[in-house]
């Protein structure tokens, strides 16, 4: 640990956190290593697979491409912040029922992308779902069960359930 590294403050899953790290450390690594939130995964390091997706200031981002300095003051949600205490988010319920997760490695990022999609667009059509998830690669499912999960969650979840998700803007 070096004294000249900046202290980065952020709100993570509703809780204020701070870390002192090299400013060019990837947000992904800060989440996994410094903050020990290992739900967010590294699949490629190039922003191609989306398994590192998190929500930052109300937008979906690939955390492998964010230098942590740029997360200063940000409101961040990871998969660990999706369920509220012991109650699964409607998307998580839907994935469980419809088989949206197989090996599970893409699932955290996929849930973030799906949450982002249905929060902005509570009743997305297939084309919008495909586009919303196009940045999250899943090698196991062929995407069909995931589409079904998103449709099921969008159909079931009352708008108020979506408000539980912390969102900066």
């Amino acid at each position: 640990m070096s004294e000249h590294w900046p202290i980065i403050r952020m709100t993570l899953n509703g809780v204020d956190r701070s870390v002192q790290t090299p400013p060019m450390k990837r947000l992904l690594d800060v989440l996994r290593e410094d903050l020990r939130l290992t739900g967010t995964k590294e699949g490629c390091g190039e922003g191609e697979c989306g398994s590192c997706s998190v929500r930052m200031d109300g937008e979906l981002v690939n955390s492998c491409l964010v230098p942590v300095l740029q997360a200063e003051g940000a409101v961040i949600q990871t998969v660990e912040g999706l369920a509220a205490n012991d109650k699964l988010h409607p998307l998580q319920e839907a994935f469980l029922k419809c088989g949206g997760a197989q090996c599970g490695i893409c699932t955290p990022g996929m849930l973030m992308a799906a949450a982002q999609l249905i929060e902005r667009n509570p009743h997305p059509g297939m084309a919008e779902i495909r586009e919303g998830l196009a940045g999250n690669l899943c090698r196991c499912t062929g995407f069909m069960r995931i589409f079904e999960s998103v449709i099921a969650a969008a159909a079931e979840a009352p708008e108020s359930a979506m408000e539980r998700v912390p969102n900066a803007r």
Partner: protein
Amino acid sequence: MRGNAESHQLIAPGNLASVLNLLAAEPGAWTPIAGGTEIMVAHAAGKLTAPKLVSLWGIADLRFIDVKPESIAIGAGATFVDLRRHALIAEELPLLAKASTWIGSIANQSRATLGGNLVNGSPAADSSPALLAYDAEIEMISVRGHRRIPYHEFHTGYKRNALALDELLYAVHLPRRFARHRQYLRKVGTRRAMAISKVALAATVLVDDRAGYGIINEVRLGAASLAAFPARLYQTENLLLGQRITRDTIAAAREAIVAEAQPIDDIRSTAEYRRRVAANLLEEFLLEVSREERSMKDTHP
């Protein structure tokens, strides 16, 4: 992760003036980083050589979309999500709105900036063909002030551009005069999303249909991956100018674009494929224009 975070300095002065002062004080020493969607990939591959970086993220003075009577000014820090969400861009500059949906994925679009896309200067840059077809202007800024050049003069070579060492790309200006132009943009990639362009063609054409003659009065063709940088296709444009769209014009235009394009073989595609597809795209556009003109003539004899 092959990069070492500890080998790089990154600062975020947070305002434009401080960044410009820094660039002026130490020209060439500091590499600007906006959304990081290119630089961080290089970092992860262990290929980021820049020891000092200055962050442009969050500088409000760079992230704007200003609608003026004659033009729209887009700040270099505007993200592609900003562009996608802007109603007037969707209405008056549909090619740019379309291109914005093609950058990577939603997660990339929320971080990638227009300025970053242009300064990175890949020959496959997604926003470039539309900007070329719309006759965009680039505004650059330094402590010495602002200056503007046509966008088609911005790229000077493979990953080289007109920015001086102390300059930042400040804004892109797009004229608001394409309402009557026929417009076309098509990108050919490896798949429907998250695809680097193998070839892309943007076109804006004004057809003079007075007296029923359908002459091409204005034409701009912007292409990606047909040269060392995104470029206009002037020779093909010149051939089309003043012409009607006939079978012969199309054949000549095909030959012209094949002759003018200088694509390469690379890991994604072949020069031959790119040349042929460029010709096909141009033909597709000209046919579309010709059909539209004809149907307009049929309904407005």
